[in-house]
């Protein structure tokens, strides 16, 4: 599905990602973990086209067979043609627009195609009305999935934090992605919200979309991921199932830490 090989990202003298290679299988939840500054978000930005990698390649094969070279595509094409959606570590919603509008903006390319370059739709002709109704239906589906139907007409910026996180995920899903990249979706959520998030992510995966997530909350990572990639200083130090990772001495040393009996009481 997603195959990253030899990915390198150099910022001046700093090599944030150094020859990283990993695979994410279709229909899996793949987690990327590692200490702060390990290069996780940089990897994400390379995959989603916000950075152009200094070296290496990123290939994406759709379930239908079409394949895309993500490292050569312009940023917006990665979302519109390669169907890779993402969320951000610091939530980036359209705060001054309503929840529903946020979900409709995400369907921009589909809806835009139905407006006939805008001219017909302005005159009230063409098939835009039907396309917009379909867009609203899709938005309703996701509103229902994230439990925000009642707040559809509220500005996104006025939602509580957990709801904003869920809305950002729903908005990303509105582009019909084959791969959804989530940058710390559970950050700042309370245990109940975190549970809801897990359910939502499982539901998205069962709907046929593969997931790639960066996460610090090991509870979330261990419970839902099928496959974990561990980074440290821009390099991959381990790669495997949750059970393998939990017992890998390299990962324990770099990131997970020893059990509680070794910790010095504060």
């Amino acid at each position, binding site marked *: 599905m997603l195959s990253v090989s030899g990915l390198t990202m150099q910022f001046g003298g700093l090599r944030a990602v150094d020859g990283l290679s990993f695979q994410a299988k279709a229909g899996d939840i793949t987690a990327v973990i590692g200490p702060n500054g390990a290069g996780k978000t940089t990897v994400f930005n390379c995959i989603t086209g916000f950075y152009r990698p200094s070296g290496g390649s990123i290939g994406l094969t759709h379930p239908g067979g079409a394949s895309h070279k993500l490292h050569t595509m312009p940023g917006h094409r990665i979302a519109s043609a390669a169907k890779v*959606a993402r969320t951000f570590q610091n939530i980036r919603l359209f705060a001054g627009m309503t929840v529903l509008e946020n979900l409709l903006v995400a369907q*921009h390319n589909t809806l835009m195609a139905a407006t006939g370059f*805008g001219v017909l739709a*302005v005159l009230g002709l063409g098939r835009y009305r039907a396309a*917009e109704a379909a867009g609203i239906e899709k938005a309703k589906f996701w509103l229902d999935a994230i439990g925000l139907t009642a707040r559809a007409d509220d500005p996104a910026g006025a939602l509580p934090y957990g709801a904003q996180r869920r809305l950002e995920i729903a908005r990303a899903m*509105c*582009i019909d992605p084959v791969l959804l990249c989530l940058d710390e979706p559970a950050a700042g959520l309370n245990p109940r919200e975190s549970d809801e998030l897990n359910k939502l992510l499982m539901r998205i995966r069962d709907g046929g979309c593969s997931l790639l997530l960066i996460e610090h909350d090991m509870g979330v990572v261990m419970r839902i991921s099928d496959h974990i990639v561990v980074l440290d200083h821009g390099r991959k130090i381990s790669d495997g199932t949750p059970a393998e990772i939990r017992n890998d001495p390299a990962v324990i040393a770099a990131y997970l830490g020893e059990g509680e009996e070794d910790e010095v009481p504060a």
Partner: protein
Amino acid sequence: MTALRDAFLSALVALGLFAPLVGLVTTSGEHGLLLELRPIATAVVVGLVFLGRLIVLSRRGRTRTASAPSNRALAEKVSKAGKYVTPLLLVAAVALPFTGSRYYIDLGTLVLTYIMLGWGLNIVVGLAGLLDLGYVAFYAVGAYSFALLATNFGLGFWTCLPLAGILAAFAGVMLGFPVLRLRGDYLAIVTLAFGEIIRVVLINWVSLTNGPNGITGIPRPTLFGLAFSMDGGPGTIADFFNVEPAVIQRIVFLYYVILGLALLTNWVSLRLRRMPLGRAWEALREDEVACRSLGINVRNTKLTAFGIGAMFGGFAGAFFATRQAFISPESFTFIESATVLAIVVLGGLGSQLGVALAAIVMVGGLETLRDFLSFLGDQMNSPLFSGIASELPLYRMLIFGLALVVMMVLRPRGLVSGRTPSVALHKVRDIAPGLVARGRG
């Protein structure tokens, strides 16, 4: 006590500012200019500042705690009133020529031109959040396109109107390309420079534009091929309807032309706001990075905003040229861009009604203020005001500037702030202005 001290300091600043501005006046004497002192007028102004500051401070102390809910209540009231204001304004606009007063119709035409420019710029600044300080460039391109096409090829107004719009839109896209990567202040500087470049080109390209002398003899618009001519010969309005030819007929016709053009601008903007394109503009204003992550082509979306905004500027320019029958680069200075931008900001970014109200206040109000001040000057016979009464109209801009400052202090997000969502599942509720991004280019 602190309030008193604060007010005293304000008065001191005002004294420093107004002592040379109001307190000194030069009159021509026998051997050159004579300097005359006006302590009373200065004292009046400084006293006003002192009292005004005291009032502001005492009010602030009382209303600070209750300001949030009262703002919301006010916003609701304004939005309710807006429902009545719009049709009222429309009726007033349509009915204005029936007053028969040439002065009012001319003023109305001027105000409507600025409303149209404001609505056009609102697409770029209000919706897409791209700060454009050179909007007058497109106004100029539209005006010169029409003037040159008409005088060189003998084309009429209605043929040239779409051409002027297309050429202006083309200029908008041309400006758009190099500035796409710029944001905020940098974008503002480049657009400002673009506006000046166009004007300087118009001045210096004498072989095409006749330079600073301008273009004369620009044809007037016709009504279905019927000209508004004073000779009343065959093929003119007067001949066709068998009435006496009169200048007022043309004035009224021009008024309705600009009213139609302005309403077209408004209609297209309102429609586009409910379309994916308009939503993408607003999303761009809110968060460009998020737009990119959703597959929106940021470059093309910005270019359409520039292009469509410029197109309406071009229409307005063509109208300006046909109304004046004479254009020169002098009509397209930076102050025009600044006025239009002030209209958009004062009206409230993105609000169609706000822009219309702001244009009425800024353009119509300024004219009314001039009349009012001359009237007031005539009434003041007291020797106390001797000297100042006859000059009162000169203080027009000062008073106006003061009014703008007060306005922006009271309603920092414009007359009609807040945003009406373009679509709703249940019920449309306005969004508080605090949440809406202003755009950083």
